[in-house]
């Protein structure tokens, strides 16, 4: 009886981790069960790059996370400038990996400072590998970001989608072989 229960649980777990389930809703960045993220992959994350894209540049989140954001823009003028910790104006903010486990997900809090007020921004979070130059391990896209003056409500970025062909690239590296840094 116990063996049967273990077998059942094993099969359910196998199903969950092998990509069963509904397709993700477009634009939401929902990862469904299609995403494989191993602990090893998380250990490979050197940091995250956060960028706000101005309205009108993309119509929705489609395809944005498939490769480096940098390669999809004609210029950094399409990004909303933000401030780094030193007060410098930068096109995107890099924060080192300091993920903490929070229930079923791992999270990391940060703040984009002095963001020009506006609405319909796209928040793109890219996970960079520890390599030099770094590679894109995964990304998430969150639509309809509104920034008001003062301190805004915390935005829960969509979960980062990691590439399933990790380690399967021609050069054997993880993720996509493009340098996401601006």
């Amino acid at each position, binding site marked *: 009886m116990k063996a049967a229960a273990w077998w059942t649980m094993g099969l359910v777990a196998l199903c969950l981790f092998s990509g069963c389930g509904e*397709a993700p809703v477009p634009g939401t960045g929902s990862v469904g069960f299609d995403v494989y993220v191993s602990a090893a992959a998380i250990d490979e994350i050197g940091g*995250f790059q956060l960028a706000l894209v101005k309205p009108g540049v993309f*119509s929705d989140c489609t395809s944005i996370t498939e490769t480096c954001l940098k390669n999809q823009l004609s210029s950094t003028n399409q990004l909303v400038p933000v401030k780094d910790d030193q007060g410098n104006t930068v096109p995107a903010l890099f924060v080192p990996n300091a993920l903490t486990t929070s229930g079923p997900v791992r999270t990391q809090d940060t*703040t984009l400072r002095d*963001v020009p*007020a506006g609405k*319909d921004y796209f928040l793109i979070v890219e996970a960079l590998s520890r390599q030099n130059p770094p590679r894109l391990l995964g990304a998430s896209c969150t639509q309809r970001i509104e920034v008001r003056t003062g301190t805004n409500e915390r935005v829960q970025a969509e979960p980062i989608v990691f590439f399933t062909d990790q380690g399967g690239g021609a050069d054997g590296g993880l993720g996509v072989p493009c340098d996401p840094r601006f």
Partner: protein
Amino acid sequence: MSLAQALRGSRPPGRNIGRPTSLCYGFGPMARLAGLLSAALLLPTPPALAAAMAVFPSDAPVLLAQLGPRSPEAEEANELMEQGEFEQAVKVLQRGLSQPDVSDDVLVELYRLMGLAQLYLGNEARAREAYEKLLQARPDYEIPHSAPPKIRELYARIKEDIRKRRVRPVTLDAAPIDVHEGGRPLELNARIEDMALGAKAKLYYRRAGAQSYSSVDFGRAKGGAREDYSATIPAYELPAEPRGYDMEYYLEVADAAQRRLAGKGDAFNPLHFRVTPAGEEVPGSTKASAWYENPWVWAGAGAIVVAGTVTAVAIASSQPAGNLPVTIRVNP
């Protein structure tokens, strides 16, 4: 390996935020035969033929087309190809491609089928042409890694050729608008050269102070040259009001992936024009007349200049900004 997959194509795996568009179209018996012959053309070796036969076994379940982009021409062409009517299918596809306002997904599907039909007809050059256009419309379109080497080589060669060719940049030119009489539609003419396939030109506009922009598409100007485009802001968007008001606008050409290819102004640095009350004469600039009519200008011109400068500096240096706390999330 699957030749069907190869010809069907796919988006890169694992990045599944994209539109729920599937390019899966059915392959009936004749299409299987076509695939077999195409494989034979591309892989003229006995093992290749065996591989193609393995791809399209006679009892294989037919893939369904219900998730693909809906286009009557694509569906008709698909049926014709299933019946082996490839030349007729090409004509239908050409008709589909000449339709106005073809969506990007339909465009991709039409070119994909065109490439397949031309391959079957033994016309690699035409197939190549179709795949080139497909790539222009959807630069990230990928043949699966599992596709036969010959097909991947052909596709890789096409991509490399496009990269080397360095497609000429799109240029957009349009005369600025100064003033417009309220209550009347506004037609804006633009000259767009080297318009990329699948790209769209739009005129974005909003009333000064409004939060969001509306947009209208540019279309080919009637009776104009191939590069002449026009877009019209409807009259109801520019109502006549007693005091007049300002409008902000910008022009943008973006490709199928919504990348900006060319433009005039942008959302944060828009161009401006003034909407005058109905019936008011529209001179070169209403600002000039207002300047002369306002006695305060004469009374305190110097003070206004100084105050204006100070105000401009103050506004520029105090752009409203906020802090945005963000939680990055990773599903383990």
